[in-house]
């Protein structure tokens, strides 16, 4: 193994899997701040890809122009699902386990309903081949560089927003104690809607990046969901920073193993096993701590 292998793994890992980090940030926001494991988040990603492709092909707009609108539409749909499903579910006191299954049902509904709207065949963005830029000797497409820049921008914006603004303070207060936050004059509805919107925008933009670099298909988001979820469950304990670092390391590991095994599926296989074993090891450790 030489330096070339490492630099290749790092460049490919970070650029190719930047959408994974972006999607994981959105998912983590929902997961950590509302406590919800939202399986339907995979469809927010898919819808971002579909709307991006639709804006791009219908109005003949370039990818850079459609990226944010695709994210915003996905964000609005995300808020829509909150009002249509998750808010009523919370009011009806649905349990945590049932909530996961409900989000699974919603995921299936959205995935198949969108096929009635956008059609069954796999669709593609109509974009000229992206300009290739050499980074550490590895050729990287301009869209992928933009994906990395978006991850950096969204992460910084979110960090600033959550840590430094009054809305961010409200979000954190709401996440730690909803009743107290409400008694302190925080409008939980507005803040919750904001969280769902930001998460949706991040997911939708990630979807557009996934879509433009391959194709737009109904299973686009679902195929990424397990990895997004793994990154958030493993890295989420350390806040958004943990999610970003775990996401970046996951991307690099996937790229390195794909280079090594010659097949991305083997890399995914190794990663799933490694993450699940890590979770098991962590739970064993925490049980030991409780015993003490």
């Amino acid at each position, binding site marked *: 193994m030489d330096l070339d292998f490492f630099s290749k793994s790092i460049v490919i890992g970070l650029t190719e899997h930047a959408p994974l980090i972006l999607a994981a940030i959105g998912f983590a926001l929902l997961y950590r701040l509302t406590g919800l494991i939202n399986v339907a988040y995979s469809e927010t990603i898919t819808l971002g890809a579909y709307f991006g492709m639709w804006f791009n092909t219908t109005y003949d707009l370039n990818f850079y122009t459609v990226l944010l609108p695709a994210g915003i539409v996905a964000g609005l749909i995300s808020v829509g699902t909150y009002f249509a499903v998750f808010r009523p579910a919370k009011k009806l006191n649905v349990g945590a386990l049932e909530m996961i299954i409900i989000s699974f049902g919603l995921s299936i509904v959205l995935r198949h309903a969108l096929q009635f709207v956008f059609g069954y065949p796999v669709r593609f963005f109509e974009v000229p081949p992206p300009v290739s830029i050499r980074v550490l000797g590895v050729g990287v497409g301009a869209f992928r560089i933009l994906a990395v820049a978006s991850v950096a921008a969204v992460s910084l914006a979110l960090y600033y927003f959550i840590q430094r603004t009054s809305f961010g303070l409200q979000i954190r207060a709401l996440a730690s104690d909803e009743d107290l936050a409400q008694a302190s004059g925080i409008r939980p509805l507005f803040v919750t809607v904001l969280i769902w919107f930001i998460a949706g925008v991040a997911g939708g933009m990630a979807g557009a990046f996934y879509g433009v670099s391959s194709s737009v298909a109904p299973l686009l988001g679902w195929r990424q969901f397990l990895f997004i979820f793994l990154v958030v469950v493993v890295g989420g304990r350390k806040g958004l920073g943990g999610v970003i670092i775990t996401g970046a390391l996951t991307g690099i590991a996937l790229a390195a193993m794909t280079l090594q095994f010659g097949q991305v599926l083997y890399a995914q296989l190794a990663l*799933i096993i490694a993450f699940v074993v890590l979770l098991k090891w962590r739970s064993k450790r925490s049980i030991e701590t409780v015993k003490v």
Partner: protein
Amino acid sequence: MNLEWLDAFLISGLFSVVVIIGLALLLHLQLGLTRIANFGVVGFFGIGMYSFGVMFTKVDWPFGDLPAFLISLAFGTLVAGLSGLLVGWLIADLDEDGVLVGTLGFATVVFILATTEQDLTGGALGLGGLKFPYDVGTVKADEFLWLIIVSIVVSLIFLYVWWVHRTPYGRLLIATGGNEPLARSLGKATFRTKLWLFAVGSAGMGLIGALFGVMERFLAPENLGIDVTLAAMVALVIGGTARAWGAVIGGFLIFGFFDIIVQSYIPFPKEWYGQAIPNAKLIVEGLVLMGVLLFRPLGILGAMQRDKLMRRVHG
């Protein structure tokens, strides 16, 4: 056997209903009683199906078809059971997110192996060469007999579930699902109970997968989609997660309607049957799952009637 009265679509429709009921019954023990949401049903179903298929078609058996078939079937069931034991060990002390990751991860691993291990599974091209262990004349008669055999197997699974409800083991599952720390503090081995539950449940799912593979005759990774897990979950949830009959009633209601009535008896335009109806079916499944859990979480049959049952069992 003269089977002219019997529609071939009816056989395949009934077969899929029976398979889904079988999976939903096993899921009932995990989700309904022990409250472990197994999102990897299709993984256990798939590993049983492929282990059976590979063993049956790739090994040069020195004896006749029937013993080879039965040994392969046992092998598929055993591999699924051992996988269940491993997955159970990994997730038994994790919370809901860990269980979701572990079970979904297992299903993905099985899908990946079915796709990558081309020498064994045929990869994306699929694995052919499966056949019924008998020949009673026509394809329709063979399939009808297979439907009866699989119905008997699923009935036995139902009897097992029915028996579990009446045993101390069943009460232990319910206690573990209700309040695990309490059950453990009372000296119950909840970890071991979950392991056993996962091993037996997964072996059953693997057996059903193998039986399903025989009817399909051709195994492909497309058979390992999340819709298998969804189908079992929907059947169970609509009938009633907490009741043994829930899976049976839910399976007949929703899949009987789609796979038998819509497929054979409602004259929709022919072109709808290709993609529109399967797509609409999945939307309805998702809506049912959401609607039932929101407005009637215990399904059609409602809550467990433990007091009544215990009085009947113990007097």
